[in-house]
């Protein structure tokens, strides 16, 4: 069952990465020059229904995929999404499943992901803070993720929960 959910989660991450690099990268669909961080959101949503070790590995794999599809050094997004997966893992039991708590969690974790990327990028000499809209690029995707989460989280729940031995639900 866990293997099934891992496969579903990997598939979702792949789909999210393709959508992120195509349709969500189209400026005509971006509001104020930013798009939701779909891969981050899918990792947050999927980790909910996975065993701890596969969940952390999912974050790493999803990040590695983003690194390989992008132009930044390999390992940056892998590190960021590993942290995202781990934090989600640690918070999933602490959080009530109320929509406000979940929204706050999605917002906070996505903000953290963006901020962590900027810190790493600065350490590695990518100069992300040279972009005057760097802060906006952290904040807006996090806000959009909260909105998109309303569709993604129940969708992931529907895909992963029915046969999962873990009784948790974004939608309950």
């Amino acid at each position, binding site marked *: 069952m866990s293997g099934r959910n891992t496969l579903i989660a990997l598939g979702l991450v792949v789909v999210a990465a393709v959508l992120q690099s*195509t349709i969500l990268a189209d400026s*005509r669909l971006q509001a104020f020059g930013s798009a939701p961080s779909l891969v981050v959101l899918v990792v947050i949503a999927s980790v909910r229904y996975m065993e701890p070790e596969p969940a952390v590995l999912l974050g790493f794999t999803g990040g590695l995929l983003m690194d*390989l599809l992008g*132009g930044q050094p390999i390992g940056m997004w892998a590190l960021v999404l590993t942290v995202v997966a781990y934090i989600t893992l640690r918070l999933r039991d602490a959080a009530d499943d109320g929509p406000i708590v979940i929204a706050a969690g999605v917002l906070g974790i996505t903000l953290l992901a963006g901020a962590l990327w*900027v810190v790493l990028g600065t350490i590695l000499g990518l100069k992300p803070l040279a*972009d*005057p*809209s760097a802060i906006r690029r952290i904040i807006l995707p996090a806000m959009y993720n909260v909105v998109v989460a309303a569709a993604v989280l129940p969708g992931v729940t529907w895909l992963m929960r029915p046969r999962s031995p873990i009784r948790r639900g974004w939608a309950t």
Partner: protein
Amino acid sequence: MFNLRRFDRSTSVFIGLLVISFLLATFDVRSQGTGASAGLREGTQALFGPLQRAAGFVLTPVVGLVDGISDLAGLREENELLKAQVRELERELADTATLRNQVAELEAINGLEPPEDLNAITARVVAASPSEFDFTRIIDIGTEDGVLRGMPVIDENGLVGRIIFVSDSFSQVRLVTDPSLTVGVRVKETNETGTVTGQGSGPLRVEMYGAKEPIEEGFRLVTAGSRFPPGIDVAVVTEASRSEASFTLTTRADPVIVVSKLDFVKVIVDWDPLELPEDIPEETDPGEAPPAVSEEEL
């Protein structure tokens, strides 16, 4: 709140993956995107390139539809009666309008002559980086078409960027707006040289070293040569500036390309950048130390 015991194994995995990630990033920065990491990227691009192209092909009408509908928001508010009709028409015309724009752009770029009669291959932008902080684009030509790492990329407006990674059928272009790319430029009006560095979505940062003449708003910056063919439009100065006591002159310039509208580009395939001394990094790609004055194509 937290049950540490329960996450002991996952914490070990987490720490291990953090270390691996950081080592990978460090290794990739040191290798400047070559070696094993290039092989990994090539495999991934070979796998995902067709997927991205297919997704773009399938989803373009959706984008056009949404774009069309959003453009009509104001009109709908003014005239509720026409709303349904216009939306219906827009739905039908969205694809046509998108195609018409693409044809116009393709015609424009096919009419573009690369500098110094250099051979260039037209390519289409099929995807962007999935990262919000990464200013790159994927184009649909690769080594099979004669594209090599480091080749300049232009469009009908001017310099787009340079190839940073190539697979068989796809290539990745680092845009001139990327903070990790510095381009040597010459001011068309004064012939003085300097560099421009990307600042993401902001204007380019212009630095002129020991410039004797002031730089005025509207001055055009073109490539100075070496890494890029000379004379390609890069940016237009937006702030006048002058150097004080021969110190570095710093100002801003808008890139001539419209990043949000990149669709068709040309890769200059027979440009041979000048050899640089061995102690100077080959190019200012991510992770390298901030570029020195002599690092680019002055």
